[in-house]
C-alpha cells in the first residue's frame, strides 16, 4: 500500500490533509490506469478527478483499510465504465479516430519533428482504440486490467467480487471476443 492505514482512518474522519496525502500517493497510478482504460489523453485528468471525488464521498463506507487498494480500483472501474457509457450514448468521437493531440503528434512527426517511436505509439493506440470500439465496455475494462495493467486473478477477484472460476470464464470469453474483433479489423484492412 502506498499509504498507511492511519492516514486512511484520518481521511475517513474528515481530515482534508490526510485525503490530500492519499490523492497525491495514488494520483499517478490512477491517471495511468484511466489513460489505458479510456485511451483519450484529454479526458484522463477529468475522469481521474471523478474517481477521487467518489472516493471522498464514499470513504466512510470502507470498513477495513487493508482493502483500500482493490476498493479504489473498483471505484476507478466504475467511474471509467460510467464515462465510457456516457460517451457511447452521446455518440461522441469514436475511439478509432485520432484525438486532437494525436493529430498534432502525427503532423509533427510528418514534418520530422517527432521521434519515430512516438509515431509507433500513436499507431498502437489507434489499433487498440479500434479494437476496443468493437468489444463491449465490460470486456474492454476487464482485458485492460488483466492484459495491460497486469493485474493478477486475485486482484481482479477483489475488484469484481467474484469467484476465481467465474472470473476465468469471463476472461476467456472476453479474450475470445477480442480475437474475433481483431480478425474483423484484419479483414477490413485496418491493422
Amino acid at each position, binding site marked *: 500500500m502506498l499509504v498507511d492505514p492511519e492516514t486512511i482512518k484520518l481521511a475517513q474522519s474528515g481530515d482534508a490533509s490526510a485525503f490530500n496525502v492519499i490523492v497525491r500517493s495514488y494520483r*499517478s497510478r490512477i491517471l495511468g490506469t484511466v489513460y489505458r482504460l479510456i485511451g483519450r489523453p484529454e479526458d484522463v485528468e477529468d475522469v481521474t478527478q471523478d474517481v477521487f471525488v467518489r472516493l471522498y464521498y464514499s470513504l466512510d463506507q470502507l470498513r477495513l483499510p487493508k482493502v483500500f487498494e482493490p476498493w479504489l480500483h473498483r471505484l476507478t472501474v466504475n467511474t471509467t465504465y460510467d464515462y465510457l457509457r456516457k460517451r457511447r450514448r452521446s455518440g461522441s468521437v469514436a475511439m478509432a479516430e485520432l484525438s486532437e493531440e494525436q493529430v498534432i503528434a502525427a503532423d509533427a512527426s510528418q514534418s520530422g519533428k517527432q521521434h519515430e517511436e512516438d509515431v509507433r505509439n500513436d499507431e498502437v493506440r489507434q489499433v487498440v482504440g479500434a479494437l476496443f470500439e468493437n468489444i463491449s465496455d465490460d470486456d474492454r475494462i476487464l482485458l485492460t486490467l488483466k492484459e495491460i495493467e497486469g493485474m493478477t486473478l486475485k486482484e481482479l477477484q477483489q475488484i469484481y467480487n467474484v469467484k476465481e472460476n467465474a472470473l476465468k470464464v469471463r476472461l476467456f470469453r472476453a479474450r475470445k471476443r477480442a480475437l474475433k474483433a481483431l480478425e474483423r479489423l484484419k479483414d477490413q484492412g485496418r491493422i
Partner: protein
Amino acid sequence: MSRLLEEKLERIWKHYRAACSAPEPSAAFMPELWAKIDARRSPGWLAPLRVWATRVAAVAGLAAALLVAAVGMWQPRQSLEVREWGYVDVLAQDAADELDGDLWLLVSNGE
C-alpha cells in the same frame, strides 16, 4: 482462432502498455479536484433536513414492519375459520343435521 492472431493480440497488449505511460498531472489537478468535491457537497441548511428525513424513513420502515408482523399474526386464525366454514360446508352440515333429525324421528316412532 489462429495461433498467429493470438500472438498478434499479445504483441498489441505489450506495445500498448509501453505506449500508454501515465501522464503527469497538471498543476490544476488538486484545485480542480477540491472544486468538484465542494460543488457536490450539499448546502449547510440541507444537512439537518437530510438527518430528519433519514430518521422519519427509519421510523416509517419500523412501523410498516410491525404492521406486517401484526397482520401476519392475526390473519391466519381468521382465514382458518373462513376456510373451515365455507358456504358449501354449511350446506353440507345443514343437510346432515336434517338427516339426523329424520333418523331421530324414525327411532322415536319405533320404526
